[in-house]
């Protein structure tokens, strides 16, 4: 099972901070496409993705128990 975290505008749109889904074996790109469609989160395409708190590439493959986070463009400071 994998935990998927949403932040900022994505979190508001999804209506929740996180979901649990088994996406192991899928690429980051595939997960993005699935989540975008399932939760109506078109803006997910503008987001970066982190796996276990480290930025990931779109062809990186999710492993069992990985924590995935979608990172919208940041605006700290």
């Amino acid at each position, binding site marked *: 099972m994998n935990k998927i975290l949403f932040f*900022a505008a994505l979190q508001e749109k999804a209506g929740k901070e996180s979901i649990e889904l088994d996406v192991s074996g899928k690429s980051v790109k595939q997960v993005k496409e699935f989540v975008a469609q399932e939760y109506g989160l078109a803006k997910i395409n503008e987001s970066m993705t982190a796996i276990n*708190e480290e930025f990931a590439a779109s062809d990186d493959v999710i492993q069992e128990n990985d924590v995935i986070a979608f990172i919208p*463009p940041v605006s700290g400071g």
Partner: protein
Amino acid sequence: MSKLFSITEEPISIEQTVSLVSSRNAGAINTFIGTVREFTKGKRTLYLEYQAYAAMAEAKLAEIGQEINQKWPETKTAITHRVGKLDIEDIAVVIAVSSPHRGDSYEASRYAIERIKEIVPIWKKEHWEDGEEWIGNQLETKSYRKGTPSEEDLI
């Protein structure tokens, strides 16, 4: 709040962040204090709301500290960023860099704030008199509202 790189929900103590980098080898400590501005391009902000992916944000702040150490050896960096609801004039971020000679601490401090706006998962939501919006990038020119940015956002 003794961690060099931290995300906090409490008001930030400038002195505490500065004390984290104090060193007998330092001849300078440069402090950057990021505060909440009331007017952005003529539009009045009532307050801001900051959110962070705290664990990753602290790791990325530490990474910035490592980058600074490579670029400017013998410097020491501490960064504290606040999250939650912040009012106008509140302190959102404090960066302190100490170095043997002043030049390095100035440069490293500037580098740190620019990197925060690139790689650290922290977001701010503007609350105005007539609406609210998560801000999409550090240039404050891009947002997530449906449709196209307003004229004012593009200036």
